[in-house]
């Protein structure tokens, strides 16, 4: 078997939020969304704001229910409709780097990074060493004992990123993790993430509203329509790895991809 089943399959996924008392039923956020993610793929998803990108990732991370459709992970269907049946992070196999860093304010940076290992009972000298390596890789060495409020926004993002990497989930969902950063930090973190992905080859689903970012990082880019969201376009990013993120815009394929994707984002 050369071509295995896709790692993650999303079929006809739908979502609308429950109606509040005395109000009309809110409209569909996501309607008939179908796509799949291959193992070790870096999939980027772009779409206008309010297109339900975060809601999609929340459903895949199993912290929010779906209103219809099906999701299969490693060919196994996963429960979607009952909040009690949800299994957030599906037994630590799906990591989630959210838009906000969600660091625990009473824990130092190092304690935050070690938090998943601690609650999973996997705090060993080896995993600690791995955490220290990651901290050095993203340039946070020397800030281990700082509290989150003592770190800059970029540092907090990096801490949140390696908090997910440290326990090595095979799939990582990322929700505009570099959204609120200045251009320079952003490019640096994109390069770091690209390097980490080349080295570890995880499966990444990366949501962004920035088309250039989607092209720079992705193997493939999906374009979501305005709500109710469905797939409006799919683009294979034919730029070889490893890439130089800083110079990505000068690549001959970039301009054409950018134009085609932009034409689909409303």
């Amino acid at each position, binding site marked *: 078997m050369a071509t295995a089943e896709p790692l993650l399959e999303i079929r006809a996924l739908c979502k609308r939020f429950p109606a509040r008392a005395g109000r009309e039923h809110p409209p569909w956020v996501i309607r008939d969304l179908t796509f799949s993610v291959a193992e070790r793929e870096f999939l980027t998803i772009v779409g206008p704001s309010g297109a339900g990108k975060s809601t999609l990732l929340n459903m895949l991370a199993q912290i929010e229910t779906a209103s219809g459709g099906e999701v299969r992970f490693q060919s196994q269907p996963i429960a979607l409709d009952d909040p009690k049946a949800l299994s957030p992070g599906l037994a630590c196999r799906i990591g989630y780097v959210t838009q906000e860093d969600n660091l625990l304010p009473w824990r130092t940076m190092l304690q935050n990074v070690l938090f998943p290992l601690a*609650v999973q009972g996997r705090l060993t000298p080896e995993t600690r060493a791995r955490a220290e390596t990651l901290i050095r890789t993203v340039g946070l060495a020397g800030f281990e004992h700082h509290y989150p409020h003592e770190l800059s926004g970029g540092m907090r993002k990096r801490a949140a990123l390696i908090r997910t990497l440290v326990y090595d989930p095979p799939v990582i969902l990322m929700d505009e993790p570099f959204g609120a950063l200045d251009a320079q930090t952003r490019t640096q973190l994109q390069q770091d993430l690209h390097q980490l992905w080349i080295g570890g080859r995880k499966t990444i689903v990366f949501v962004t509203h920035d088309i250039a970012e989607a092209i720079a990082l992705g193997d493939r880019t999906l374009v979501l329509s305005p709500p109710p969201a469905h797939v409006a376009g799919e683009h294979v990013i034919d730029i070889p790895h490893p890439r130089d993120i800083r110079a990505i815009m000068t690549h001959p394929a970039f301009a054409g991809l950018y134009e085609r994707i932009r034409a689909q984002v409303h």
Partner: protein
Amino acid sequence: MTLQQPALDRAAPTGIGWQRHAIVLGRIGFAALLVLAWKIGADAAGPLYLADPIKVGQRIAADLASGALIRHAYVTLRLAAIGFAIGCTAGVALPFLLRRLPRLTAAIEPYIMASVGIPKYALVPLFILWFGIDDAPKLWLVGLLVFYVVFIAVFAGIRSVDRRLIDMARVVGASEAAISREVIWNSLMPFFFAALKIALPRAVSAAIIGEFLVGNEGLGYMIESARQNFDTTGVFAGIVAATTLVLVVNAMLTALDRRINAWRPADRDTQV
């Protein structure tokens, strides 16, 4: 010379040093003014209504020397501490239990909130009727007063915990018990300490009031028996001793709060 990280730089800017001294001096001066006003008032009103501060000081010194004051203070402190421990444990445990039972919570919440309105001191006669005249009725009074303060703060605190932190903890594999212990408990700390700042002095007050009514030892008994003997100096000595007790308990609590909640940025900025 090494430069500190700006974020960690908590050294006061120049000019704050003498201001701090001025504040301390001001406090001492204000205390002296209060004692002076007390002395003038005592001389004007007569010893039956306002005890002379010097005599009160002498009485406290004498009671300390005889060991009576320490004994009474210990009785009150013990009563307040046990009642506080019971009320505080129940006040923390019940909201955590109710968190797991949302339907039950929704059903009984109005009754809990209505019971907050019952004046607890008015229940003392009932407690005496039910539990006798030993420590039990006093412990019920202290425990109930502490329980409500802690319960309401912790209950509100649990509801205000950032959902996103709980979701994050779930995704990285934290069990419900780990989430309670780590995310909810730590998020609660500011609420919990705000409650303790009210509940601890209240526990001491409730113990003293309980002793007014029942029993023959403790600071409350000391004050009340002095009043019955028209010993105003004794009443004042008891009030000063009770106030000191509350201040000591508060100082210990503040020190604990600073230690445990050191991560909170707001605390650091507002410390004088």
